């Protein structure tokens, strides 16, 4: 049972199932939310997610940082944060390349709020974690690989 679940995650079928559920209307309540960026959160690949966020070609920047452990023992709870020292940072997002849906969370930062947000995310497997930052109308990105010793999408 448990092995099967891992395989489902690896092959990405899990994401397809979620898509099918959505199509069948089983999880419609969430879709009624106007503000939630459905396209971005349901996009499966990094490229599609970036496109949905309107950030087709983010530039790698040293001023953006992904904070997190090098190795996460428990993929269900991985502390991850984004910091940016770019002036005028208005949006930060956390993306996990190998998760079924790449986008984990995005935050809009009004003036006066520091570009330093920490949260905890689930990771199915070892993956690159990306911090996407919008500053002064342009998109910047930073990457960090976090190794996961125990997958985090189940319980």
């Amino acid at each position, binding site marked *: 049972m448990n092995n099967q679940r891992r395989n489902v995650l690896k092959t990405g079928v899990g994401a397809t199932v979620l898509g099918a559920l959505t199509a069948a209307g089983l999880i419609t309540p969430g879709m009624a939310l106007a503000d939630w960026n459905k396209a971005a959160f349901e996009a499966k690949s990094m490229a599609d997610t970036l496109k949905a966020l309107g950030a087709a070609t983010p530039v790698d920047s040293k001023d953006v940082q992904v904070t997190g452990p090098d190795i996460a023992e428990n993929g269900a709870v991985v502390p991850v944060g984004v910091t940016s020292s770019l002036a005028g940072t208005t949006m930060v997002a956390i993306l996990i390349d190998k998760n079924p849906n790449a986008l984990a*969370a995005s935050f809009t930062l009004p003036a006066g709020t520091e570009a330093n947000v920490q949260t905890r995310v689930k990771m199915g497997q070892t993956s690159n974690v990306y911090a996407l930052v919008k500053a002064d109308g342009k998109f910047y990105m930073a990457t960090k690989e976090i190794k996961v010793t125990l997958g985090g999408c189940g319980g």
Partner: protein
Amino acid sequence: MAAKPMKIRASVKDGVTEVKALISHEMETGQRKDANGAIIPAWFITELSAMHNGKVVLSGEFGTAVSKNPYLAFKFKGGAAGDKVTLTWKDNKGETRTDEAAIG
């Protein structure tokens, strides 16, 4: 199931307020199966916002990859001891909850 209150801590130092929140929520991904092999429907927080003195200081959108009982920490300029910080979330079932804490 009624949602449990959030735990919010806010403290101000050198004019910058740091807010740490622990939200009680299942954050079910919709990808797990129960013992019978049926998929457990997704149930997760989609939107979240933080207010201070009637001004939004952070708004966020979550996907299913955010951990169960989400933790969130952020900082904003301003705020004084005794001010209230209010957090509101809304999940994909339409449930919402608002809690507030005084800056200590």
